């Protein structure tokens, strides 16, 4: 990691400044939250997959959402972006309630997501994938679509913007190829670039590094960082701790559906509750007495997973 840059980018400084005085505890209040969620609960039968009491995401910062497998990170993502409906709870984005809002309307409000399993639109060309992201297209109405004169001007603008983004993401050489012919890492890049076509305020990345070859990792990291410099807010789910440490300003840890810790990367990774969560001990966020843990482990072995 050649981080020899002497000057710290302004976006990083701003994010650090904003998060300086925020206490390192679950549900901490942020200076200027773009997203505020309250008591969001999602149950699948008897299993409570997500039970988030209160969480705020700082505007203009890169926030990582981490936690062991099955902690409910992706489910929480799906709930926030309208791809799943919670059993209870409400959340606000830019001051507007998003509870019960359909996924496409969430995207139009400026919160755009990517997917853990990349969704490149295989049999569309790369440039068409990009153009699809443009919002408010007149030619997307059926009757208007039949008269090219109505939409061709706007199409040209969208294509220009798409070409700029493709160049920035180094996909311009693949412009005319089918998206299905791209490699896994290139698909991730395409998906991120396509999300930017929507001109979002907040980008939600679900495991942006999964399945990306190491050579592309650095460039992908650079792109995520550049979103912050462009004034966007990023929330991402990731398992790669090096990446989390490298790019995130703030880390939220989930375990068994709840937010169990929050803080800067360094404090969070040293937090015993987080280590417990990853190592599989019970984590109710209380004291950390070895005897109590041993007891709980013994209990858990009796009752097994269902709580």
């Amino acid at each position, binding site marked *: 990691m050649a981080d020899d840059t002497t000057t710290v980018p302004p976006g990083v400084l701003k994010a650090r400044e904003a998060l300086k005085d925020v206490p390192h505890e679950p549900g901490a209040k942020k200076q200027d939250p773009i997203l505020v969620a309250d008591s969001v609960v999602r149950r699948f039968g008897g299993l409570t997959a997500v039970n988030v009491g209160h969480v705020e995401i700082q505007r203009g910062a890169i926030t990582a959402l981490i936690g062991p497998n099955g902690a409910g990170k992706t489910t929480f993502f799906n709930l926030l972006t309208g*791809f799943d409906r919670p059993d209870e709870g409400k959340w606000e984005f830019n001051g507007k309630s998003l509870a019960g809002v359909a996924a*496409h309307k969430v995207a139009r409000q400026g919160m755009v997501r990517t997917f853990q399993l990349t*969704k490149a639109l*295989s*049999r569309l060309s790369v440039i068409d994938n990009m153009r699809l*992201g443009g919002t408010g297209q007149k030619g997307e109405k059926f009757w208007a679509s039949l008269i090219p004169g109505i939409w061709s001007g706007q199409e040209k603008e969208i294509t220009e913007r798409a070409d700029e983004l493709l160049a920035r993401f180094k996909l311009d050489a693949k412009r005319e190829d089918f998206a299905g012919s791209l490699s896994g890492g290139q698909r991730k890049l395409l998906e991120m670039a396509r999300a930017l076509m*929507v001109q979002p305020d907040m980008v939600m990345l679900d495991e942006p590094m999964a399945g990306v070859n190491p050579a592309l990792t650095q460039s992908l990291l650079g792109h995520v960082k550049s979103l912050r410099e462009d004034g966007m807010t990023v929330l991402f789910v990731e398992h790669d701790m090096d990446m989390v440490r490298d790019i995130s300003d703030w880390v939220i840890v989930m375990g068994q559906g709840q937010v169990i810790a929050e803080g800067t990367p360094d404090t969070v990774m040293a937090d015993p509750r987080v280590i417990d969560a990853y190592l599989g001990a019970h984590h109710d966020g209380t004291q950390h007495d070895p005897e109590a843990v041993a007891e709980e482990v013994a209990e858990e072995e009796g009752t097994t997973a269902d709580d």
Partner: protein
Amino acid sequence: MNWELIFGVSLESLFNATMIAYALAAIGLNVHFGYTGLLNFGQSAFLGVAAYGLAMAVATFGAPFWLGLVIGLLGAVVLALLLGIPTLRLRADYLAIVTIAAAEIIRLLFRSVTLSEWTGGSDGLQRFSDDFYAMNPYSSTLDLGIVSWDNRELWVMTVGWILIAVSLVVVFLAMRSPWGRVIKAIREDEDAVRSLGKNVVSYKMQSLILGGVLGSLGGFVIALSNAAVQPDTYGTEFTFYAYTIVILGGAARVFGPVIGSMIFWFLLAFINALLPELIKNGYIPTWFMTPTQAGAVGYVLVGLGLILLLVFRPQGIFGDKKEVMLDGR
């Protein structure tokens, strides 16, 4: 061997009303299946509703011909809404189940005894096409030697080919536009499209209506060419032929359904004319195949040909092999 007869029948089926009706049905199905990825297994219902809408309006209720056409088209739109509203939010397979069931329900309603006062039951309806043939500008038979069409056939074919041309222009314009881009993207992955702020359910509904209305034009062509409607014309096999035609021509290709329909009906007519001639002239012994069996064997051979086509050319006539080989997801 009466080659003139064999080729005459085959060439005629390249252009006749049956081929036109199936081409229109397939153009609509291509919008559903080829472009949007909607598994509509009830395309026959759209043709049936349009044909019966026209026939019932004119023959049963005495409405003018043009009103009958409007009612037929509205029927197709209403059918699309009825099929789409409960199913388009669900996974693709549910649309397939609902559409195939709905198509059968509609056919059985048309032939039910209870409704026969209006629908004519299993005999169907006649006497609704007089106004259409009154507009016929042709007065004589077109005789090209090997094939000939009388003036009524010519009139149906003229209108039918105009309808095909208009439909193809609409599909071409719509599919190369941003609207078509959304439609094709939905075929690839609807969640991705949703995540980019598009109302997927609304687009799927628009596609269902467009394809249904284009297909319903085929219903008019069949009804007018026969000057009659019969419920069993609109059975499930109609839809399966239309699927065959779409895949044969190449899914998501503008001209695919028309070329597919031409090839399908040409081959079927050719084999169905050839086999009886071969039997009659002793080239096929009767212990092997009788003339009555030849009809069924024709379908068997066409089916075999289509299987071979799918094995060796899965993209159809016009498709791009590279595109088909890409994983759809």
